[in-house]
């Protein structure tokens, strides 16, 4: 059962509560279950991935994606690495995100589509979509899903996360808003979703670390991080993303400024829904590429 956490729980166990507002995810002893195997997450960055207009350079982004997948699968041959993820007879849904102020870069959708095709899947068996999944022919029969979205802070769930990206797999997304969206991970256990996700990519090229106003956005709070977080375990990837956001907020504001409200749904994804692990002690974070201002 989920523990009712307070600031004091963190003070008692770590001597600092500042991390708690971020996620409560830096505290292995008190929170998490008994996953024995570590979740591997790859953080890859390249300082030249974006051009002067903020658009991704395709060759660099492709290299980043390939190196991340190769590292994640521990397979130097990228073709073979993808073949571990996608089979030729798969029907593949690439769940993207179209939020107009910070969408998944279309170029990344295209690259993923290319890689899936190179794994032997024909073009007409691949769909790239955010909205209307329940009535989409490809997503309705999808045997494999790839989840890709940018990370950003969010007014109600704390962050827009990989876990949250699947809210479009339900008819009534608002039914999951209760308790600051604590139970979003339950969507991942629905029959039409469960067990299908082969890869999760949290786009950290230009994350949003703070939001203002009705649209929770201002360019002032977007920063060029030039990274991708890639993993099989969406909870682990989200947990690492939140730590980066939280560190950026501390650096920017000059003081601890917890993500508000706390992204409870990530902890609940671990503790209540057992979707993956949010415990840093159970996450094998592998760094690749540019290290400056990595924040983690």
């Amino acid at each position: 059962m989920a523990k009712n956490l307070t600031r004091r729980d963190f003070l008692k166990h770590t001597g600092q509560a500042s991390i708690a507002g971020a996620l409560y995810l830096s505290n292995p002893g008190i929170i998490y279950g008994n996953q024995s195997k570590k979740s591997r997450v790859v953080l890859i960055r390249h300082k030249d991935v974006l051009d002067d207009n903020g658009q991704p350079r395709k060759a660099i982004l492709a290299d980043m994606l390939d190196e991340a997948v190769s590292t994640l699968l521990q397979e130097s041959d990228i073709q073979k690495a993808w073949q571990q993820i996608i089979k030729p007879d798969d029907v593949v849904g690439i769940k993207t995100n179209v939020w107009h102020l910070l969408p998944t870069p279309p170029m990344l959708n295209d690259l993923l589509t290319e890689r899936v095709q190179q794994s032997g899947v024909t073009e007409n068996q691949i769909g790239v979509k955010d909205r209307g999944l329940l009535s989409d022919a490809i997503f309705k029969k999808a045997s494999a899903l790839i989840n890709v979205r940018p990370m950003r802070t969010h007014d109600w769930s704390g962050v827009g996360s990989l876990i949250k990206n699947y809210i479009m797999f339900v008819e009534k997304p608002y039914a999951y808003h209760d308790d600051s969206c604590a139970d979003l991970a339950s969507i991942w256990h629905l029959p039409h979703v469960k067990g299908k996700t082969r890869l999760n990519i949290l786009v950290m090229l230009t994350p949003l670390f703070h939001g203002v106003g009705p649209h929770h956005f201002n360019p002032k709070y977007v920063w060029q991080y030039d990274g991708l977080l890639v993993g099989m375990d969406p909870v682990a990837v989200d947990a690492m993303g939140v730590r980066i956001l939280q560190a950026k907020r501390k650096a920017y504001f000059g003081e601890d400024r917890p993500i508000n409200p706390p992204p409870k749904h990530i902890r609940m994804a671990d503790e209540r829904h057992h979707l993956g692990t949010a415990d840093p002690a159970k996450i094998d974070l592998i760094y690749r590429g540019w290290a400056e201002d990595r924040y983690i």
Partner: protein
Amino acid sequence: MYFVHFKTLHAMLIIVMCCFAGVLMAQNAKSETLRSFLPESVDGWQAEHSGKVYGRDNLYEHINGGAELYLSYKFSAMINRVYMEEGQPDIIIDIFDMGKPENAFGVFMHSRETVDTTFGQGSESVPGMIHFWRNRYFVSILAYPQTEASDAALKKLAKTVHNRIGKDGLLPQIITRLPNKNLIPSTIRYFTHHVWLNSYFFIAEENILQIEDATHCVLAKYNYDQKKAVLLICQYTDKEQARSARDRFIASYNPQLEVQNSLQEEDDTWISFKQDMRSLAIVFKAPHRQQAEKLLQSVTNLEE
């Protein structure tokens, strides 16, 4: 018997229809009021449409994913209008009717970083964006990316709306309880929904202070030689609720508070609390015990 049922049914139908008509009339009145705040043009920008009005049931259509914040502050209605000018960014204005001034103030202060009163009763400007509140209205005006002309138009539009709203509204009464000494004004946060309890630092995941719709809460930071204490005041509907919240807080947070009103926490800062009548006041993260207790003592009018 059938006749009685028919009469009853008839009467109920009339009541329902009257209620429905009343609701419709109220909604129309709100829509018209919101429209009256908006000009047809601003500098060279022309209004694209007469203004789209949203209510509690469909706000998410306009601010997908962001509606819950406004709903938690008892949002009532909103109008959105877009102004267009060739070669310039669109100007998007949203005016939220929050029902009461205190809710407009709360939603404005929610993410405020600076103190500014250029527009309304409080405003905040960053490149391409102006927010302000006046009376029961929260106003957001955007134009990305900002140009020199759009910046001027944004300010002109903000001034127009400010003038058309006309009157100021009252601040939430609980704000007056905050001691002024060492207060950092931009850090005041007012709310009636427990999810905003963790605005400055993580206090608790669950609603351990039993904050409900009718509970008025204020959070603010106080500066002590660059170290910041946080004062929380919650005002409940009656003494019993305050007492119940106090008991839950102590049991959940630290049972030692039952015997000592001030305690040093594991990070060496001090927590201190008191309950007076229907209010609960708690100081967190004070550098010294005396500071925590003095701040608590100077919370005004805790006795109602």
